[in-house]
């Protein structure tokens, strides 16, 4: 017995030594990083605990590895949200014909698949016709308006339309094109994981694939002379935003698109010469959605008064670390600024901060304050609303807290209610919420934004799932404007339609814009240069908006 005690005491004294020995041994054994060749370009875009080898560019759920549709495979055109133009990629041009019922796309001539086969119009028509036979692969419902897609010659593809649908151009040009000679032999393209992709993109060779790390090498036959300048891409599995942030701070990651709190101190401060970020406001706006089917909130003047009570400056500072700016009255952020209508901007004076006016408007609307300073419904009940936010989305939770305090000032009682993503989404989509913060639809024109906000196309009764238009607002005029928009390719006509949509938006306040949605992008210039910046905005920096990030992938250079 005594001996056991002795051994134990001995072990107790020894244990720190043993620990140090352990560390030394481990470090000796593991610090032989393969240092052959130039450094890999390390990108953090997906947050996963382990990678699954899937390079199928057609699956709509986004379960294939980044950059399958924006680096391995390529589209015909890339919409550049910084310049607002379609950059010719696998195609060189397009032309509407036959009263916008036919679209002719001319293809680039010197493109070769990564296995050496030439890229032709047959590949394009095959891609689209595969989507026709497999509805699961057609997330943009292209075959709702397409009649046929055929190769006229090796470099000309003809799209024929069932009905005029000009916005369909966007979906058609951004489709990743697959090689016919590989995919025609695949039995079930929906369940095909495409482990060794044959593609046209700048990076096609899978150099290594483990669950925690994988590497993507250059396409030996890439059509752009001398590009890409980067030898290989490397991806690590970081399961959470925190882990990705730590790696970014430590300089292990060269390019990322994460939300980082207090970025100037946390990230830039670690290495001001090399650590940079750029958050251009290309997307839409973040909205406070109010359920227009509920009494009180169904009143236009009330919605405008709620908007006037919200201190957006404070939200941007407190919740968003000053990464963005308060929303424009038309809800169009910088990227869509050329579309803004002057009339709508003037009429949208309710997207401002004016407590007095908000109080006046609510008084006028007939909702008097009760004994507790809270306004009363006609039936005598005090106003009380929940603001639903996804639990853990701390930026929006703080924004909701500011809104809740603001609304108290005008006599509206609210409570910030956090819920799990699935439960939150279901309550929003079913119209079973009072207020909630969420995003809008994105696209190259404001058409999708306003269609999602005001068209009856996606309107569903409360209790049924609506994919967009959660606040349940519809306008007949917007419906007809949408139809008119779908039929025209005339720039001026399009502009007039979008202007009118904006006017309807600011007149009816179907939802309340809060702040412009930034697109997150961080980069490290220690090993690589030529990232897009505010001074050289050749594309947006964020890797989160494929296929636009292809522009960055081919332009980044080793130092």
């Amino acid at each position, binding site marked *: 017995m005594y001996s056991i005690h002795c051994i134990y005491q001995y072990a107790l004294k020894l244990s720190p030594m043993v620990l140090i020995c352990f560390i030394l041994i481990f470090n000796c*054994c593991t610090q032989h990083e393969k240092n052959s060749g130039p450094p890999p370009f390390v990108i953090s875009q997906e947050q996963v605990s382990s990678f699954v080898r899937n390079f199928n560019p057609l*699956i709509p759920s986004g379960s294939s590895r980044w950059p399958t549709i924006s680096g391995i495979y390529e589209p015909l055109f890339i919409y550049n949200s910084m310049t607002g133009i379609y950059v010719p990629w696998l195609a060189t041009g397009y032309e509407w014909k036959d009263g916008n019922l036919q679209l002719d796309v001319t293809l680039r001539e010197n493109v070769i698949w990564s296995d050496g086969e030439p890229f032709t119009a047959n590949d394009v028509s095959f891609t689209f016709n595969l989507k026709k036979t497999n509805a699961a692969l057609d997330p943009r419902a292209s075959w709702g308006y397409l009649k046929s897609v055929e190769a006229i010659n090796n470099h000309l593809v003809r799209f024929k339309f069932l009905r005029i649908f000009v916005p369909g151009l966007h979906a058609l040009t951004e489709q990743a094109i697959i090689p016919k000679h590989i995919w025609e032999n695949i039995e079930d393209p929906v369940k095909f994981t495409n482990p060794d992709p044959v593609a046209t993109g700048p990076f096609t060779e899978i150099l290594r694939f483990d669950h925690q790390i994988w590497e993507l090498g250059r396409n030996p036959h890439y059509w752009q002379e001398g590009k890409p300048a980067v030898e290989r891409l490397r991806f690590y599995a970081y399961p959470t935003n925190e882990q990705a942030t730590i790696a970014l701070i430590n300089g292990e990651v060269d390019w990322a698109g994460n939300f980082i709190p207090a970025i100037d101190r946390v990230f830039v401060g670690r290495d001001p010469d090399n650590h940079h970020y750029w958050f251009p406001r290309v997307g839409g706006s973040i909205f406070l959605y109010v359920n227009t089917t509920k009494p009180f909130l169904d009143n236009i003047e009330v919605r405008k008064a709620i908007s006037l009570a919200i201190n957006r400056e404070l939200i941007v500072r407190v919740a968003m670390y000053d990464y963005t700016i308060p929303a424009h009255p038309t809800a169009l952020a910088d990227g869509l600024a050329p579309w803004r209508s002057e009339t709508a901007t003037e009429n949208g004076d309710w997207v401002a901060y004016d407590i007095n006016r908000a109080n006046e408007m609510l008084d006028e609307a007939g909702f008097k304050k009760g004994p507790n300073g809270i306004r009363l419904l006609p039936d005598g009940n005090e106003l009380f609303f929940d603001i639903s936010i996804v639990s853990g989305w701390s930026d929006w939770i703080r924004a909701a807290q500011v809104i809740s305090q603001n609304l108290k000032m005008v006599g509206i009682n609210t409570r910030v209610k956090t819920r799990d993503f699935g439960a939150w989404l279901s309550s929003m989509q079913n119209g079973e919420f009072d207020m909630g913060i969420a995003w809008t639809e994105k696209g190259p024109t404001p058409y999708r934004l306003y269609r999602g906000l005001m068209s009856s196309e996606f309107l569903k009764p409360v209790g049924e799932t609506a994919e967009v238009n959660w606040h349940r607002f519809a306008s007949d005029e917007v419906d007809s404007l949408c139809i008119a928009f779908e039929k025209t390719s005339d720039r001026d006509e399009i502009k007039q339609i979008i202007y009118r949509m904006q006017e309807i938006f600011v007149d009816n306040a179907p939802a309340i814009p809060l702040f412009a949605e930034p697109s997150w992008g961080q980069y490290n210039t220690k090993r690589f240069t030529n990232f897009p910046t505010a001074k050289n905005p050749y594309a947006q920096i964020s890797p989160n908006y494929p296929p636009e990030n292809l522009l960055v992938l081919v332009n980044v250079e080793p130092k």
Partner: protein
Amino acid sequence: MSTSIQYLLRRLGFYAIAAWAALTLNFFIPRMMPGDPASIIFARFRGKLNPEAMVALRETFGLTDEPLMGQYFTYLKNLLSGDLGISIAYFPQPVTEIISTALLWTIFLAGTSLIISFSLGTLLGTLVAWKRGGRLDSFLPPALAFFGAFPYFWLAMVALFAFGFGLGWFPLRHAYGDAVTPGFNLPFIIDAIYHAFLPALTMVMVSLGGWMLSMRNTMITTLGADYITFARAKGLPSKMVMLKYAARNAILPNFTGFGMALGFVLSGALLTEIIFSYPGQGYLLLEAVRAQDFPLMQGLFMTITLAVLGANWLVDIAILFLDPRTRR
């Protein structure tokens, strides 16, 4: 001995019924959550996908409007043939493939730390009880109870920050480094142990106290029994009395606890795995629940259920040998 076999078979029957009940709940409870997987995947794109995509998404995942009972019987039938379906979040990967790699890492990390903490805790409990009132007894129980009071994920975060981020002694993430190739080779095994060290350490530190205290308490009760006095009176060596007379009896409740813990190994390391980016089951489970990935959830819950039941059955067998009274 035939009675023992009867006893084991009876237990096996009980476990079969328990397994069926658990698998049924696995099927129905996830489906009672609000929302559906296609909507959640659609919303993940935050406006980058058109509403029109919903049709395609439902088509892809084969989500049907078949009545729930019909789906339930298909599910049972598929389970019996070992088909757990195709994951939604990791489409089109079969659930069995996703689980199998994650399972190995979790068993390695959580299993090893459980065995270490159980054996060390039980041994320490034995020692402490044998020399109760001694220096060790006055120091260890409160110290370990103190560590045991920490939430394990908090300790994991502190350890990661201090020894990983601050001092740089240990890796910040993953189960092995970039330089080694997975397989049965020495550098890989050493690297895997190195990566598992910190997460395992935090898990051992938190759970050690529990094993030690419960062992110490039963041991003290056992030491007061007549047969111990008798054994001492016979003049047996004190090591023998401690281990073969006292500890063998006192270990029984701990052993049952070990069986339970062994089963929960598969789910227990959830937050530790997330903090250390460990590619185990924990993060997978979180992801499956978030994405309402029914097939993956069912698969994960099934492995956990089977592990709990299997471990308990093994403990039943072990106790049969350790405790002659159950054999009667």
